[in-house]
């Protein structure tokens, strides 16, 4: 495990930060959020051009083969700027799932993803599965032409705009059997697929998907038949680290905004920051952020080599910690801003919402604590 970043990594982080400072200020970000689709095709094209979409993707799949630490650096910068582009959905979840499930198909599909021409989404969770990755009841039934999919996928991140959906469905087993779930590639405009699209509380986009007799070809099945759960688990473990890095970025930005506010806002004839009780609270926020940052990068650095329970337990540790720390930092930031913190106009509330929604995604603190215990 190495705590120093390489020159390349520093350069990557710097160039992303510069780009975002220039093109993705809070107001620009809000305009993007409010616009058609809730993200920007122009920005996405630039991400592709700058090589960022391919950065964490393997070289043999058209990417640059970056490590999980590289990915974390990117996400940390995204977190600071509250990026709402479909990066998690397409790259962290989508591309990674395809790559892990079926390297041959990945070589065929991912180049278009890396070039920004194809968006992906992972449609795995269901209305009653909550955070239980093995609980899948969407059914895949074999027929002459291939497979027919029926079921309901819940809160699919950027499921509204994906060109290709990766849908998990049962080809065997039942309820929460780990075996018997298979992945399928489904075109975003497939007949029998109904999308209920919505913005999410934190300004991203999502959709619930109803699959009602969706016919896909035999070649739509992706990866080992019945073996999807282990793949999705590995993908989500890494996504937990990516999201944690995003949270670390959001926390750092939140601490900076709050500190600035304490310095400038005066009450009782002095800056709020002169009240010792508020100083201590700001220091708590900073401290949470520091520890979260350290744990996040430590975990990122072992993600590419660790496997099985070791990997999962590490992912759960960081996700639980980020959920807990992000909640403290976010809630305190609002409190220390007083009424201003409650307004939609201030960036701090948007960081707070993102931090809380990161906890809600892929298993909250309670879930990951339990998983950490179970895997111990």
């Amino acid at each position, binding site marked *: 495990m190495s705590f120093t970043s390489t020159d390349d990594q520093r350069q990557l982080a710097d160039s992303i930060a510069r780009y975002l400072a220039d093109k993705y200020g809070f107001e620009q970000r809000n305009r993007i959020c409010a616009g058609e689709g809730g993200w920007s095709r122009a920005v996405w094209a630039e991400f592709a051009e700058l090589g960022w979409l391919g950065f964490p993707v393997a070289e043999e799949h058209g990417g640059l083969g970056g490590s999980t630490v590289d990915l974390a650096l990117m996400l940390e910068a995204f977190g600071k700027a509250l990026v709402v582009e479909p990066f998690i959905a397409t790259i962290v979840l989508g591309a990674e799932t395809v790559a892990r499930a079926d390297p041959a198909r990945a070589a065929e599909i991912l180049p278009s993803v890396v070039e920004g021409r194809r968006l992906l989404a992972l449609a795995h969770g269901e209305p009653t599965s909550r955070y239980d990755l093995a609980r899948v009841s969407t059914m895949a039934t074999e027929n002459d032409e291939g497979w027919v999919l029926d079921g309901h996928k819940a809160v699919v991140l950027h499921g509204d705009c994906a060109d290709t959906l990766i849908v998990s469905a049962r080809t065997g087993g039942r309820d929460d059997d780990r075996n018997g779930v298979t992945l399928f590639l489904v075109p975003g405009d497939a007949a029998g697929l109904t999308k209920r699209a919505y913005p999410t*509380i934190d300004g991203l986009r999502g959709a*619930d998907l109803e699959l009602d007799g969706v016919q896909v070809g035999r070649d739509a099945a992706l990866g080992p038949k019945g073996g999807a759960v282990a793949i999705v688990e590995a993908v989500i473990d890494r996504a937990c680290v990516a999201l944690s890095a995003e949270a670390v970025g959001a926390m750092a930005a939140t601490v900076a905004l709050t500190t600035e506010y304490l310095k400038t806002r005066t009450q009782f004839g002095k800056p709020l920051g002169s009240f010792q009780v508020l100083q201590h609270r700001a220091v708590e926020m900073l401290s949470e952020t520091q520890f979260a940052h350290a744990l996040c990068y430590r975990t990122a650095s072992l993600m590419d080599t660790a496997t099985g329970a070791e990997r999962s337990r590490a992912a759960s540790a960081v996700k639980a910690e980020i959920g807990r720390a992000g909640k403290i930092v976010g809630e305190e930031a609002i409190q220390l801003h007083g009424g201003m913190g*409650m307004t939609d106009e201030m960036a701090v509330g948007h960081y707070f*919402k993102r931090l809380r929604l990161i906890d809600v995604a892929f298993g909250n603190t309670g879930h990951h604590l339990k998983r950490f215990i179970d895997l111990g």
Partner: protein
Amino acid sequence: MDVVLSPEEEAFRQDVMAFLKEKLPADIAEKTGNGFRISKDDHVRWQKILHEKGWIAPNWPVEHGGTGWTPMQKHIFDEECALAGAPMVIPFGVTMVAPVIMKFGNQTQKDRFLPRIHSSEDWWCQGYSEPGSGSDLASLRTKAVLDGDHYVVSGQKTWTTLAQHADWMFTLVRTSDAGKPQEGITFLLIDMKSPGISVHPITTIDGSAEINSVFLEDVRVPVENRIGEEGKGWTYAKYLLGHERTSIAAVGRSKAQLRKLKGIARTELAGGKPIIEDPDYARRLAQIEIDLLSLESLVLRTLYAESEGRPVGAEPSFLKIKGTQIQQGLTDLLMEAIGPYAAPFQPEAFRDDGWNEEPVGPDYGPALAPLYFNWRKASIYGGSNEIQKNILAKMVLGL
């Protein structure tokens, strides 16, 4: 563990329950139960029902239309109303400005304003805070200059809850810069239809529009709308703050919320089992329930002291802090209860403006995350929890 009520109190509780059963409009109770926004019309409709029954103003003296209830009866009433899903009575008129008018207003003011507050003909808002004056309210700068028999008022009020509906605003204004800041403050009642007033909504982080900025530009306010003496506004405002002792704890509302939470926690599944059976979740739920019990215990003790005529000290500050922590804790567990379905933002589903599609996720889902975010306000307003602790440190500990 229920509070032991005397036979009279129990009979009273039955009366209240029967009244609520008969008179609380089902559509309103349903909205409250689902966490939907309650419209102005709904509030007024319910408040008028209470007015007709004579139960709108339990905190008023009987001669003005109060109920003559004991503190315990008031508590029972609040609790039953909350549990039945009655919307809370908007406090600005009945609870806040009316006691000040009664205590410090002249007869003309009492005759003019109190009946219309009692009958909910007038909607009031509270114009205290300003952009530069929140916790340090006494630094307020909205200026009122005497010009013949009018004050000319200019400045900006902010965070003004539900000012968009208001007919009247009670406000603190600066009439003098001499002496201590508190001494130059005057209490004015301002007609919201006066020329020079503009109300601008402030959107909060949950996407709702319940607070406003109120701009005042050379607004002419008749001197007859001043309460008491010029320069004594601070004293009157402090009287108001001390007046409401226990309702700030919102025990009834939190009990209703806890009941709702348990219902949801029995329905929502994790690993195929209701989350109420998850040891970690159950433990946190139990902790809040216990907190609520201790909150109620201090409320009851305070009510008892009040009914014995003993002075109430620092309890309101303790109750405000604990009460809001519990409220926030409940909204946190509610949001957590629906797992990933906390994410979709579907304000149409709880704003009640004619949307009749099914929401994604459970019916009770869309309101919960916004409720959590909205409720962060509770530790900020009404004297922030930090300010309450400052008060306690000084008043109780003598630090």
